[in-house]
């Protein structure tokens, strides 16, 4: 039997609202990762040339290769904090063939995203992010039971301090 939680919202969680946390610095963005990202996102059709052909990209308003708007320069982290977090997530996730259903509050879903874009990411950019929790709330789901919904805002800047994007991610725990 899994116990149904009454609330996930603890005073500790509430106290985190508005506090900057988990600031990250990316490795320099490489052309190869932009190319591979574009191929994966457009598979099985060839992605637009501005993501992989420098000679072509030079003729566009961007003057060189840019990354697809949703490109994530923080994939494959190797810094201590990022790598450890990946391993932690991997250990925590729900695996198949378990005797028991996973416990309430340990399952997560991506609830949604809203982003404002200011400048594209280019090869060579080093992206820094600053994040803060901006909202926590709960909702009763159907099959999923009580759901904790959190919203986190992240500001992305490049190595010159130029604003790249502001994203707000909604995460659901159930």
């Amino acid at each position, binding site marked *: 039997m899994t116990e149904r939680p009454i609330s996930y919202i603890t005073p500790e969680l509430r106290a985190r609202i508005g506090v900057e946390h988990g600031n990250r610095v990316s490795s320099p963005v490489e052309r190869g990762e932009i190319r591979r990202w574009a191929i994966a*996102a457009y*598979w099985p059709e060839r992605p637009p*040339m501005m993501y992989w*052909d420098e000679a072509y990209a030079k003729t*566009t308003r961007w003057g060189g290769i840019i990354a697809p*708007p949703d490109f994530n320069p923080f994939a494959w982290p190797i810094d201590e904090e990022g790598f450890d977090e990946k391993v932690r997530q991997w250990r925590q*996730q729900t695996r198949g063939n378990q005797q028991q259903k996973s416990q309430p509050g340990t399952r997560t879903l991506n*609830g949604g995203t809203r982003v*404002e874009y200011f400048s594209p990411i280019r090869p060579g950019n080093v992206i820094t992010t600053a994040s803060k929790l901006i909202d926590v709330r709960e909702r009763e789901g159907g*099959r999923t039971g009580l759901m904790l919904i959190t919203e986190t805002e992240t500001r992305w800047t490049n190595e010159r301090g130029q604003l790249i994007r502001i994203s707000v991610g909604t995460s659901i725990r159930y």
Partner: protein
Amino acid sequence: MATKRVQAATLCWEDVQEGYVLPIFQRITDLMNWNRFAAVNDEFLYIHMDDEAGKTANQPGVFGMGNLRWAYMHNLVTQWIGDSGFITKMAADYRGLNLKGDTLTARARVTKKYVENGRHFADLDIWVENQRGENTCPGQATVELPSTTEKPKRTVPRKS
């Protein structure tokens, strides 16, 4: 095969009409797409790799990552605006799951066009449907487009 280096036709703000329905962006999705996307986004979760893990998570089986639908929404808009436009906003709620073998169709409609501080914008309703016509991912987007009244924009990177 030689790749032609031809500048894509430029979509200008004046070409856009409110109510216009964009050409679709469609993919049949399964582990082939999800694994490729997991590989670039380092998104190796068992729920995106294994039917049993999906079931253990109280879902019908393995399912795709929301981030790939997010990518398809950007691809849909990018194929419409070409190289000269810029997506300034995108928002989406992930409602339904993307199950194995689903045909996902990203669709959008222009809801409004306007000028703000001399910049030319269009707002879109955007969503991703599955093969049953269910809206799995409602959202909104805003694009900035070049205008026939202004000089072609060039946003060349500064030398640091």
